[in-house]
């Protein structure tokens, strides 16, 4: 169960290959990678966070996932700072005996990270900069858990 909050880029493949170690009781690994999507005109994205609270909030979300599902390992990496279109923002990985646990835990982690971890995105375009508004759909997604 690991949490990393960092400005530096990361490589999902490298992380995925090692986050569950060499255990042979893992039958299923799920990963989610979030990327900076350019819907047209995006110059870059800036991500602000709340140092200290961020790590604690993510660790609490991860602990809740471990309580709910039979996970052998999990990993959350989230970047902050300036990111260009196509760059990786964050990733989540889960390892379990069976696929249902791995998928459910990964989706749960994503839903909670979206709305409960203290990150704020700002998009910079040719027209200026704007804070990304929270989506009702993201808040609503929490009610399924």
């Amino acid at each position, binding site marked *: 169960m690991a949490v990393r909050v960092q400005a530096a880029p990361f490589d999902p493949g490298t992380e995925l290959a090692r986050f569950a170690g060499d255990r042979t009781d893992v039958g299923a690994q799920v990963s989610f990678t979030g990327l900076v999507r350019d819907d047209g005109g995006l110059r870059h994205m800036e991500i602000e966070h*709340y140092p200290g609270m961020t790590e604690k909030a993510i660790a609490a979300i991860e602990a809740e996932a471990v309580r709910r599902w039979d996970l052998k390992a999990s990993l959350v990496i989230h970047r902050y700072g300036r990111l260009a279109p196509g760059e990786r923002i964050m990733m989540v990985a889960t390892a379990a005996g069976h696929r249902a646990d791995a998928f459910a835990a990964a989706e749960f982690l994503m839903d909670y990270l*979206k709305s409960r971890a203290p990150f704020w995105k700002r998009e910079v375009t040719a027209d200026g900069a704007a*804070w990304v508004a929270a989506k009702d759909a993201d808040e609503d997604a929490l009610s399924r858990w």
Partner: protein
Amino acid sequence: MIDVLYFAWVRERIGLPKERVETEAATVADLVEELVAREARYAAAFADISALRVALDQELAEFDAPLAGVREVAFFPPMTGG
């Protein structure tokens, strides 16, 4: 004395990321009332409380939560991570 932190557009409207505040406020809502009374930029930041979130000592809380024993209060818009 309490540390008050602001993030994202709350930080931009108030014009600083952090300040130490001398207060006897009993709840978060009381603290907000004191800040709003100070200057227009605070009134602008706190104009719509329903658009804001608050954390007490780095845990999400409600605006009616008591401030007794709290060392750090943070105000920010709904989070947009992931």
